[in-house]
């Protein structure tokens, strides 16, 4: 049974010894978590997760909040104050997909959330799902992406008509923070190596700074092996042999592309969990797929991604037994292939899939 525990620890997100990861709000043993259903299929998959948690009798109380951007005093866009209050109080959140319109005037909602809670690390463990076949087997890696700066600073100008400049910002502080987090994560989850992904041959100063900070963090964590690799080499090797990678740490844009690439290796965004770690002990777990407006409201959505993120959340909170139970039920249902949503290759409804997992969970009692 010690072996089982080790296995579970390897899936815990950011159980840092220095931060307080247990949420403070706890009424009658229940822990309150802020739930942000999101747009499109968000509400239906959130309902699915809540049903499964109920079936598992997990001690979680949900506090639903909406995060549609509003313009505060002075014209600055921000998330509604009641949402912010709830998150600050509960520290743990679960979020569904949010709309990001192209060129609409207000900033991306996800970016706004990140800025508000200083969610500096996006962690995505990519593990091949037994029972959901992809051309790649035995994938077991984690991408840790710096989430606040880099190419997504949102600073753009039109210099003259027809010439646009986007600024990529790399700071010493943020690079140091993410590098330290990556090594702490590797240490806490018993991962053997950390690879820094960069393009310092072209972006000499910016990625050079990022790389220097990673090297410094590596010096402080000699028990974890450190390598550095160019972005293009990582992409090249990733599609040929993903088993050679363990933990990857990188700036924002590369992280965005690589984490989606790795999600593609295990089966897509519909089955990939994700967690965002912020300063002050805040952690928001989310499903990273889109809002899928074409299937919204038709009971066709696949709740697996949000469910696995919720499982990540349970582990972060220390509720390993419930996490294991729900995860096993989910994987068993997928492996059995009897009740699967359309994107997984079946033709069952979302509610049927949810129902199958709920039954499994109750059987595992």
């Amino acid at each position: 049974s010690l072996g089982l525990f080790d296995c579970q620890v390897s899936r815990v997100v950011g159980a840092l010894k220095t931060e307080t990861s247990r949420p403070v709000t706890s009424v009658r043993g229940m822990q309150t978590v802020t739930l942000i259903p999101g747009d499109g299929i968000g509400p239906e998959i959130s309902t699915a997760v809540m049903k499964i948690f109920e079936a598992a009798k997990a001690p979680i109380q949900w506090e639903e909040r909406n995060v549609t951007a509003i313009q505060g005093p002075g014209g600055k866009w921000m998330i509604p104050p009641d949402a912010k209050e709830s998150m600050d109080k509960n520290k743990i959140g679960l979020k569904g997909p949010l709309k990001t319109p192209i060129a609409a005037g207000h900033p991306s909602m996800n970016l706004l959330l990140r800025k508000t809670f200083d969610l500096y690390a996006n962690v995505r463990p990519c593990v091949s799902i037994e029972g959901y076949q992809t051309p790649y087997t035995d994938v077991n890696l984690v991408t840790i992406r710096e989430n606040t700066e880099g190419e997504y600073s949102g600073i753009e100008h039109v210099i003259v008509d027809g010439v646009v400049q986007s600024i990529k910002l790399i700071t010493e502080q943020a690079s140091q923070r993410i590098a330290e987090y990556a090594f702490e994560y590797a240490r806490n989850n018993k991962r053997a190596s950390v690879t820094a992904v960069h393009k310092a041959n072209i972006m000499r100063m910016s990625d050079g700074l990022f790389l220097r900070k990673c090297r410094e963090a590596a010096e402080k964590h000699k028990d974890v092996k450190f390598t550095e690799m160019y972005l293009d080499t990582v992409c090249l090797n990733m599609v040929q042999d993903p088993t050679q990678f363990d933990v990857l740490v990188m700036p924002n844009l590369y992280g965005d592309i690589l984490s989606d690439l790795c999600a593609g290796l295990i089966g897509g965004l519909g089955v990939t969990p994700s967690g965002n770690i912020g300063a002050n002990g805040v952690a928001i777990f989310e499903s990273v797929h889109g809002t899928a407006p074409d299937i919204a409201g038709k009971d066709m959505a696949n709740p697996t991604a949000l469910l696995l993120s919720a499982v990540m959340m349970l582990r972060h909170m220390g509720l390993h037994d419930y996490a294991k139970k729900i995860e096993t039920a989910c994987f068993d249902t997928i492996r059995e292939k009897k009740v699967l949503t359309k994107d997984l290759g079946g033709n069952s409804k979302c509610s049927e899939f949810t129902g199958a997992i709920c039954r499994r969970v109750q059987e595992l009692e």
Partner: protein
Amino acid sequence: MAAHSAVFSVSKILTSFRGGHLGNTAKVFGTTVTSQRNKAVLTPPPAKYGGRHTVTLIPGDGIGPELLGHVREVFRFSCVPVDFEVVNVNSALETEVDINNAITAIRRNGVALKGNIETKHTMPPSVKSRNNVLRTSLDLYANVMHCQSLPGVQTRHKNIDIMIIRENTEGEYSSLEHESVSGVVESLKIITRNNSLRIADYAFRLAREKGRRRVTAVHKANIMKLGDGLFLQCCREVASGYPDITFDSMIVDNTTMQLVSKPQQFDVMVMPNLYGNVVSNVCAGLVGGPGLVPGANYGRDYAVFETATRNTGKSIADRNIANPTAMLLASCMMLDHLKLFDYASSIRNAVLTTMNETRLHTADIGGQGTTSEVVQSVMRIIQSKGQLTAEL
């Protein structure tokens, strides 16, 4: 056609008098040049005295020198009428003298074949990547890569046939960086309307010329609204002028996901510099690795050929295990560019036969052969086809 060749032979005589300047030829023989301009490929430089072309060769670092040595061996063997002007670029020096010599040589000859020049991290940040300097100085604005599944190579995905056209001079590779405050570095990504229109136009012309159905623009305009938004807008503008070709767009992270699950859906892809780097490496990995795919960099006046993924390959250098396929196929692309089509097909067929029928593979694609064995096999096949060759 007869008129064309008559004009060309006159141009050959004239250029030997003038010293072979492409610019002068272009001005005098305007009609010849403009008819060529309609194609996506540009006018190759006229052959020099005796019908032999001169091509700049930059060995580079890592596996570059040995692979280019093999290319020269195969060319010499097949009696290809190409002479190489070798220009060495020492990546250990901080001065720009070497790379400027190389650039001058390419301006002179019009065509080059190169290996990758290493960028040492121990150098100060003011020392820019030499490869990048070369591309921007010569304004080689289009990087073209054709990824095709080869029947002889085992891969997870089959039937891939993607052309990737990547903007090669601006975007994230502008090398404009500064440290405004200590500990805060800004790197500028520049997107211009002119360059975006130019690359989009190149992509559509190439697609039409090759009979392709669909062009996909890869971007991240949901986050970089102004920069990639401008790029996307330019692509749309150009697309409206090509109603026979379907145009769609895809966000870069979705693109990489689609590439690893269903790469057969892509036809021609056009994108800014950094995404091009990622997508071309992913595609190269999907068809079998960096040793298989050749790449070309085209500008208005010059063309430089190299391997598509531009790896230095330091760890496998001088061990006779590198895969010569990519470099040999790149040299065939160069021969096509110089209109030496027969030589190009002969060498290309030999390389592909070695790969697909003889199945002599190097270690990177799971075989046991050495580089020299593969090259010997290529030369044997060329000889067996009955063309004029030197001794084996």
